[in-house]
């Protein structure tokens, strides 16, 4: 390939890279909020933001790979007959390799720091009078006990704006407690109580599912819960019959 042809080819590559990057960034910012479950808690807001940040950071890298593939298909495809001759050996390019290593390292460290920070924030307790709910998974249903009361039920009702502390355990095999709209997902293990926090901040219905295949009626371990106002929550709690 001649010098001008080579330059033209590189310009074409960078244009493709740039366009695909812009497309990737737009999709990264738009898709998580559009296709993930409706956010109903601080954890879910953070999860969606984290996915957006990670996707935006990954967009130019993915775009570079696709652009290189498209570039090669267009410019370097063998159009002759028979077996193509061996390509010219690739020689080292110190500036390119250094830039690649530095950018990759900075990006990786950034994602690591963000991820650890998000994990710490995600499960941090505010310590402000949390509502403690004991969650019990068993084959094949969830039951919820409100600590300090005689109320146990198969339907989870939570007050808006108050931190909830879930104490999650299992009576038999391993189950997975997942509230889709609140980014709460943790295994329920027999003999172990796992603590996780969230603060519901939207009224409405949410879905609870088991995320560990746990036997014949695993598919039936699906239920719904509600986030209601504080007043409605108190009314609901006092209206519940005491259970053994």
């Amino acid at each position, binding site marked *: 390939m001649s010098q001008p042809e080579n330059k033209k080819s590189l310009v074409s590559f960078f244009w493709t890279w740039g366009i695909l990057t812009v497309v990737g960034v737009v999709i990264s910012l738009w898709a998580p909020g559009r296709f993930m479950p409706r956010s109903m808690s601080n954890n879910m807001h953070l999860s969606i933001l984290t996915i957006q940040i990670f996707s935006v950071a990954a967009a130019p890298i993915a775009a570079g790979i696709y652009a290189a593939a498209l570039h090669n298909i267009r410019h370097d495809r063998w159009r002759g007959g028979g077996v193509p001759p061996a390509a010219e050996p690739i020689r080292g390019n110190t500036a390119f390799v250094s830039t690649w290593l530095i950018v990759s390292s900075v990006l990786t460290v950034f994602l690591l720091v963000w991820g650890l920070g998000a994990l710490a924030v995600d499960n941090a307790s505010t310590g402000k009078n949390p509502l403690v709910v004991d969650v019990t998974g068993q084959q094949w249903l969830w039951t919820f006990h409100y600590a300090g009361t005689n109320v146990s039920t198969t339907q989870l009702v939570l007050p808006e704006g108050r931190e909830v502390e879930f104490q999650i355990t299992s009576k038999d095999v391993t189950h997975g407690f997942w509230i889709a709209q609140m980014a709460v997902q943790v295994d329920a293990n027999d003999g172990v109580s796992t603590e996780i926090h969230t603060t519901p901040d939207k009224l409405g219905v949410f879905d609870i599912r088991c995320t560990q295949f746990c*036997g*014949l009626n695993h598919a039936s371990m699906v239920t719904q819960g509600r986030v209601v106002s504080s007043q409605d929550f108190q009314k609901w709690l006092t209206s519940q019959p005491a259970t*053994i």
Partner: protein
Amino acid sequence: MGRSRSVVVALVSIVLGGAVLALAGFALASTTPHQTALSCVSAGSGSCDLHFSVFPDALAGEHGSGGGPHPDWVSYSNDNLVVPANTVVHVTIDQYDSGGSLNNSYLGNVIGTVGGTATVDGKTVTHVDPNNVGHTFTLRGIPGNGSPILVSVPLPADNNSGTPVTLGDGSYAKPVVITFTFKTGSKGVYEWNCEYPCGGSRQGQFGEAMSTFGYMSGTLTVR
């Protein structure tokens, strides 16, 4: 020409592969054991009676001569219950099995019945001792659509002794008789199962009879 042939071969492979998978699915579905339906017997003016049993083995009930492939598995007498829509259903269950402790004492409560009660040998109860339960009859809602449990009634353990009665190929002591009433809603196929860990040692005692349709689980079809 070669390229067209490759495309045709690929398409035919995909169609044949799909057909094989579909046939396998139909074959598996058709081998799922379904017992003879036990229909609710009309008791006049919008109500009906449903009477079945639960045994410590499969020698009585719908498993056939000798108890079928697993004669030693605990079993309900019927797994295929049929009731009318928007009807009051009076249920009677004869419980012939011994028992122990529920995994979760919550299931010792009577849930979802008319009045929130059941009777055990004629005595009205809202709950039973969760450490003396033989089985439960737990009817589930449609997953993800309202309450996960529509009806759940604990069946106390049968601690009776005395002259055994012969039923099918088995003989059993006098049963504990549990009755309760619930109202059916709209048409649909609902699942029920036992929540007492009675399925052998596997899967937290929820294996074998607890993990095979036709023993400790079944369907309730609302027509």
